[in-house]
């Protein structure tokens, strides 16, 4: 049972004014070595679902299996790239990339070799000794990506890693992630609210509904494997975009009305 298997995952949050159902029975799977994105409006529980898979958030009911193992807590075989800047300002690029390996007790020599490879992979060669304060937001996310990839986890989870970046950097980095994935072919689950980003990157898209969050549509992206940022202007890309947008539109409106009337 390789890949990610979600079996009727529910997540409820209790608070004084009642219960919020963040994830409402998601049963899906990410096939091994494939790239799947979750798109959905803000507050649809997509990040919560990712946190459950990462072992950071317990599911209220249901189960998650990653590469045949039941998820009960964080696991180094499950790499996570966060939305927030998670580079450590007191470590330079190389030391940041080595962080996860260092915590895992990887030997110094192996760390150095793997860090160098990961830094090259994300296109940061020459910046090994720079500190995060001197890097742009996009470069810092590359550092975070390299840190995750260097540990060579079985699956990589990305929680809106480019959400805080400007549009151009975002598209560019999206294409970079695609290029990297074509080299590594790791199992990736990518969360975003950006449809173009999801289509550009993925082989499959799950559309999630506003609360209670569940997967309302699964769309296979039949674009060629070899793609770059120029694909966004192709007719097929547009069709797919419209398809995802149609699913999402009803949901976004519902979320919007919910907020308006709340």
């Amino acid at each position, binding site marked *: 049972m390789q890949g990610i298997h979600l079996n009727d995952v529910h997540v409820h949050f209790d608070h004084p004014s009642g219960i919020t159902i963040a994830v409402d029975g998601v049963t899906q799977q990410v096939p091994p070595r494939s790239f799947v994105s979750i798109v959905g409006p803000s507050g649809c529980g997509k990040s919560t679902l990712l946190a459950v898979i990462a072992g*950071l958030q317990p599911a209220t009911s249901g189960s998650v299996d990653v590469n045949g193992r039941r998820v009960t807590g*964080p696991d180094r075989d499950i*790499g996570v790239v966060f939305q*927030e*800047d*998670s580079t*450590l*300002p007191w*470590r330079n690029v190389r030391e940041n990339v080595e962080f996860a390996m*260092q915590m895992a007790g990887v030997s110094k020599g192996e760390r150095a070799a793997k860090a160098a490879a990961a830094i090259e992979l994300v296109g940061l060669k020459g910046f090994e000794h720079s500190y995060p304060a001197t890097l742009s937001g996009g470069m810092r996310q590359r550092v975070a990506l390299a840190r995750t990839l260097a540990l060579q986890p079985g699956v990589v989870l990305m929680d809106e890693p480019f959400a805080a970046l400007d549009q151009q950097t975002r598209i560019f980095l999206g294409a970079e992630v695609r290029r990297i994935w074509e080299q590594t072919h790791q199992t990736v689950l990518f969360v975003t609210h950006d449809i173009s980003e999801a289509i550009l990157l993925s082989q499959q898209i799950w559309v999630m509904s506003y609360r209670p969050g569940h997967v309302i549509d699964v769309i296979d992206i039949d674009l060629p494997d070899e793609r770059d940022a120029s694909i966004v202007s192709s007719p097929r890309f547009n069709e797919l975009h419209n398809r995802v947008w149609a699913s999402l539109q009803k949901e976004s409106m519902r979320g919007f009305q919910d907020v308006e009337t709340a």
Partner: protein
Amino acid sequence: MTRLTKLRESQFAGAAVVALVASAIWQVSSGLSFVIPSPAATAEAFVQNFADPRYLSDIGETAQAVAQAFVIGTVLGGAIGLLLGLSAAARTWLEPLLIAFNGVPKIVLYPVLLPIFSLGGSKIVMGVLFALFPVLINVAVGVRTIPPVYWKLGRTVQASKWQLFVHILLPAIRLPLLTGVRLAISLAVVGVVLSEFFATRFGLGRVVLQAYSHGEYAQMVSTILLLILVAFTMSVLLWRLERRVR
């Protein structure tokens, strides 16, 4: 580079000018009243003091008490600050109490400490009370303001508690911690010497007080200058370290 050098030079020049002007004013005012010793007489007393074994043992006594107060105060303040920073419960229970206690002029407790810790111990305890709070407050605030994503990162890479402490917490609070330590050194000196002013058999505070009651003003001022000089030097050194740390 040249601008930086220039700035440093001018900073040094500025300090030199201030020192010169201050000495001139001191010289002039010493002529006005016998209670103000001249700079020359003070300097002479300053040098002569170091030939006096009794004086040297007073320096040793004070230095030892300050060092002990500083170490205990920093460790204790760091531990309580850590507790306050990490535990919401500890915050609710202890914080109001600590803030109130920090507002109390601690020296009023000295007579209470004396019978408990005796002469030698009381000034160390007083030094601890002075040194404690800057470390405590800086560490507590530093820990509380660590970005949550650092902890999330630590969890996903399955860092142990010790690894979190050494590789996330300590480096993340390095700047406020250094600020706290710098203030703790100065305040440990204040706590100890202040206590020695009130009641003690040994130490520089006693020297100052005795010189005062004997009318040996050159001796008094030279010892005060020594205290200022030591506290100032340590502060400057730590301040420079603070600026070098990223």
